[in-house]
């Protein structure tokens, strides 16, 4: 039986995304995309539980180790939960600053 191609989800039915640019001020440890992802993932679970953690669908798209900025994509419906969860980010990540929240990656890339 030939493999059937799955239909692409129509843009109107897809989850809307938000692109959050974060800056880590004076982090104690060396950061990379994976470490940032797990830290965000863990703090979101701590504050909102596993269902919100999964639905938020965190993706760390970029990390600039010179400016300590990270570009993170999250589900628009859970943006507030994601920002609130940054409260619980560990001390080793320094002071976290939300530089911008954008609806397109093009706008977010300006930072």
């Amino acid at each position, binding site marked *: 039986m030939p493999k059937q191609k799955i239909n692409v989800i129509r843009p109107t039915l897809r989850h809307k995304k938000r692109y959050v640019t974060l800056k880590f001020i004076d982090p104690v440890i060396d950061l990379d995309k994976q470490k940032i992802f797990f830290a965000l993932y863990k703090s979101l679970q701590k504050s*909102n539980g596993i269902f919100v953690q999964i639905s938020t669908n965190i993706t760390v798209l970029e990390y600039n180790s010179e400016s300590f900025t990270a570009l993170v994509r999250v589900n628009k419906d859970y943006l507030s939960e994601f920002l609130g969860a940054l*409260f619980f980010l560990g001390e080793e990540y320094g002071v976290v600053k939300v530089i911008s929240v954008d609806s397109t990656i093009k706008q977010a890339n300006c930072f």
Partner: protein
Amino acid sequence: MSFDLVNIECYDVFKKELKEIGVENVFLFKKILKKEDFLIDFNLKNTNSSKIFLLEDINLVNFSPSNSLLLFKAEKSSDLFLAIKNKKIKAIVHPIGNDLIFDEASANLLKENNKSVIFNYAEFKKNTYKSIKQSQFIIDLLLKKQIPFFFLSFAEKKNDIIQPIILENFLKNFNLNAEFIKKQMQKETFEKTCLNKK
């Protein structure tokens, strides 16, 4: 305009970070452990602060200078009642103990004495379970009785400070609406309530 209350002894360490995260208005406080601590010279240039003292011992209230704002950190219910009744103390700080120390009677007394409550949000990170559990109950009571309350960092180290947008979203977990949170985070609301400025 957002604001924060930080320890005068550590302010210089994270002055730059506070500015970077958008906290433009800073009030300074001094922790009082003995009566000589009241003699500290507040260098209040470039800050909005008046002399703010944080006490943990109710007996030290009598040594406080005039024209200062006294805050009291309550950990025992007996101290809490004495502090609420004391005319010199303007606000109760983080009334959270090992057991619940704040109840409806204390809320009524606060209302009668026209006092407010300030939560130390840095404590939410340190004693997460206890602080959040008791705060949820206290916040519901304060809202019911229409007693003003604020969330400040009382920062003593760099990691205690939080960007206002993060704090705003975190506080939504306490079933507070965005408009109310924004109002409570404004310097003007704090000055009007605690510093009696118009």
